[in-house]
């Protein structure tokens, strides 16, 4: 939201777009204030009327005390029921999906003979080995020590080469070892090697083997990640080991980030592979098991969306959004899917907006196929209607906000602006504060918050 500029849906107002003095502008905003006041008054009036109507009803229908008592107790019971209902409903309205299923055994590792490791071989014939008495059999354990104590990356950067056997070995440890020290050291090793800032080194560093998308995808699948199937809500996992990824997932996330940031090797992934990875990362955001490491996920998603070239970005962004929205349920999860994206830079703003729009399109599948139609459906919702699903309305409201605000989507589209404003006013003014339906207050507060922050500008 812009803070200083004119109201979003006012930007087309000829009075505003022409240069005006500050004084005049203030006057115009004053008019807007009058308008809101007017609406507020209207709302109050409606509330008052409804209250009075209720009161009248009570007085008219009952004369004796017993009758009154009965009505009161009936009302209390109703309230109680409603409250219980509300409580029950809200328990189901918590974000969280089962993104992971059962773990699978790790794929058959393409085990490279570590003994063939060149510098291990060379050392065995070195006279200095008389101090160490190193043998081929002890080689594995010795290399583990080198890795955990951080020698390996130093050695690689000083000798200028990472052999295939070492690369494969460390990659497998990172993704499949159950030992925390091995997997984090292996991940640090790859980070040190791939993110070296030394330009001279970068040119001379030779890495004989690189993992590809297939191997990384395979790893994620073995953790239990469900590719390409719709995800079901869930935040309590029953049974042991079901739906719980191994701790290696942190290293996996970090490694994806590194692959996108490295300058040592270009085009590790194709753009469609990055699309799938970005989709997977957004899905991880939706699993409550990862709420503690949202920083890692954010960084990873950011690196992924920066990986695209400017030319391919918009199309790829749409692909991510389209394939993601088919997989997630249209409840609080879809809001989480939008709001987990940082939105600070232009690209992530655009991704936010695109995903929100695609979800809306899916919600109104049979009614709307373009921007105008979506808004037409939204403005045609009669919020006063008892049958109106306010929970859905809340979701539409937040999605529309993310779609339109902050993404330059409103620029040069006066009609869209106007309809957005109308939708907001419907939500904020036509729902009475006495409305007991669940989400009534959330919709009203949200809408008036958006309106208010726009008017403050």
């Amino acid at each position, binding site marked *: *939201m*812009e*803070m*200083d500029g004119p109201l979003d849906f006012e930007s087309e107002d000829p009075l505003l777009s022409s240069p005006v003095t500050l004084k005049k502008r203030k006057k115009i905003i004053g008019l807007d204030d009058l308008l809101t006041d007017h609406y507020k008054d209207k709302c109050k009036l409606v509330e008052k009327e409804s209250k009075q109507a209720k009161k009248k009803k009570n007085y008219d229908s009952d004369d004796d005390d017993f009758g009154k008592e009965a009505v009161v107790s009936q009302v209390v019971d109703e309230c109680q029921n409603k409250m219980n209902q509300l409580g029950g409903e809200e328990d189901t309205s918590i974000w969280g999906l089962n993104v992971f299923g059962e773990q699978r055994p790790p794929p058959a590792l393409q085990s490279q003979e570590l003994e063939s490791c060149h*510098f291990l071989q*060379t*050392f065995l014939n*070195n006279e*200095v*080995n008389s*101090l*160490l008495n*190193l043998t081929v059999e002890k080689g594995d354990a*010795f290399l583990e*020590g*080198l890795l*955990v*104590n*951080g*020698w390996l990356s*130093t*050695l690689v950067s*000083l*000798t200028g080469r990472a052999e295939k056997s070492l690369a494969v070995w460390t990659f497998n440890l990172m993704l499949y070892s*159950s*030992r*925390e*020290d091995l997997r*984090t050291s292996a991940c640090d090793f790859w980070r040190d090697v791939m993110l070296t*800032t*030394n330009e001279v080194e970068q040119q001379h560093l030779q890495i004989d083997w690189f993992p590809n998308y297939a191997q990384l995808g395979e790893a994620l699948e073995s953790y239990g990640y469900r590719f390409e199937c719709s995800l079901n809500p869930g935040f*309590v*996992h*029953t*049974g042991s080991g079901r*739906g*719980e990824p191994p*701790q290696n*997932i*942190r290293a996996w996330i970090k490694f994806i980030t590194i692959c996108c940031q490295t300058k040592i090797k270009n085009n590790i992934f194709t753009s469609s592979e990055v699309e799938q990875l970005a989709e997977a990362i957004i899905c991880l955001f939706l699993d*409550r*098991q*990862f*709420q*503690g*490491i*949202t*920083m*890692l996920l*954010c960084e990873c998603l950011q690196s992924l969306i920066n990986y695209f070239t400017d030319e391919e970005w918009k199309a790829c962004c749409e692909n991510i959004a389209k394939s993601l929205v088919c997989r997630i349920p249209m409840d609080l999860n879809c809001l989480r899917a939008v*709001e987990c994206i940082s*939105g*600070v830079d232009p690209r992530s*703003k655009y991704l936010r907006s695109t995903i929100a729009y695609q979800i809306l399109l899916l919600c109104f599948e049979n009614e709307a196929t373009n921007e105008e139609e979506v808004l037409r459906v939204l403005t045609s919702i009669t919020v006063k209607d008892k049958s109106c699903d306010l929970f859905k309305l809340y979701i539409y409201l937040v999605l529309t906000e993310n779609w339109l605000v902050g993404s330059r989507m409103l620029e040069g589209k006066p009609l869209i602006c106007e309809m957005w404003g109308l939708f907001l006013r419907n939500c904020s003014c036509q729902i009475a504060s006495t409305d007991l339906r669940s989400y009534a207050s959330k919709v009203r*507060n949200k809408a008036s*918050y958006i309106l*208010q*922050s726009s008017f*403050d*500008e």
Partner: protein
Amino acid sequence: MENPSSGIRGAIEENTLAILDASEATKHTRDADDDRIAFLEAVRAASLLPENKSPPTFKMCEAIFKILRFGKSLELISTSYQLLNELDRRFPRVYVTNANGSSMSHELVVLQEAWTPFVLGTDISDSERATNDLTGGLLDPLGFHLLLQGLAEVSDVENFQALDTKVLSNMLLFHYLVSVLEGDFVPRNQMYKETLNWILVRESLLNMILCSRKMNFKGLMKDCLTTLCGLGHFLAEYDNAVRFSETSLVKQPEAIDTALAIAFLHFGRIACDAMLKLMVMVMELDSSKKDADMQGHTTRADGVRTPLAEIIQDELTYDKNILSPFLQVFKDSKWKLEIIVQFFWKYISKPSVRTRRSNGPAEDATFSRVLKCISNSSSTKSITKKIGAHAIHLLLAHGFQAFLLLSAKQTVEGLPDSKEQVAGGSIVETCKNLISVFNCLKTLDKQLEISSCAKEAIFVAATIMSKKL
């Protein structure tokens, strides 16, 4: 002094805080927590997403910080932590400008009015600390120390079983506080090195906290050391095969357990990094202070305290058990090498009478000189007696590693500045000397079992030499 945008900011403050007001501050119900999340999202939307970003107000910052400190759910603490970090990155309190684009005219900009999570100068009584109402959850130097001590308990395996979100939020809180100190100290210290204006560093948050009357500096530093070693060791030993939830007394749903476990390992590492960062900053502060002392810029008000590097050396001397865990987790190569070299230097019989102040650390000591000094049979013998064979192996191996990393870094950063010459000597020569020291040790004691970390160092040295670098 109202700034022109305060009207808008005031309105945003009112609107966002209204989201929180709906729920009582002390409640931890689902509704209240939902409101807190909505508040964080609203602050984020108002301060970070617009094109012309403006920082949140004092009250808003305080409210976010309170959520981090007292939040009970993982979602709350990690969201608030992330928001605070994003805000600090976007709106730094102290930064160096490059006024005319030319490299000569740096200027330090300090936003005096910016919000910080620390209270300095005013005393917080114990009762206030308990209720946290008057302080708004802010920390004074003593509060900071208590937080750090709390982290030390985490690394105690017994306590780990009762893992709850309080432990996790303390780890994030500590990391955030250290990054606040860093954001304040680093640009100040950088400017000090250019201008030699000691006041810049004296007024840094870090220095003011360490100088606080209520702060027991030595105690704090010792706690840093034990916590760093304990936590680092614990994390390194953690193995999936042994699941802590099985022994947990509190029965919790499985998913929460995985969420906590994933978060714990990540936060633990973050807290470790922060601890290391804090110690390195203190050592940088010590060295700037010493420098200012020599220049005569300090006053009596600056006080006297033992430099951290010396405290660490003493601790390592008295307690050989922490030598190995310390060298494992202390990953800053510059200060690691400095500590190791000075450690050796204490035990090396100096050939000539030194004219400098003999109680201070030796300025001319380098790792190469240490290696040379101990590579003849008589000196090797005497130093083994004094330090012990196992400790020597550890110190040499880690010293060598720090040397390699530092020399690699120096070649990247171009000309080494005279103070950074701790590395000293060429790589190949040092490799050769390292091997000859071990040969010496071996000839002294034919039965000598070389420890695994020393073996790794020798292996690396030999491999580098065979590549003839």
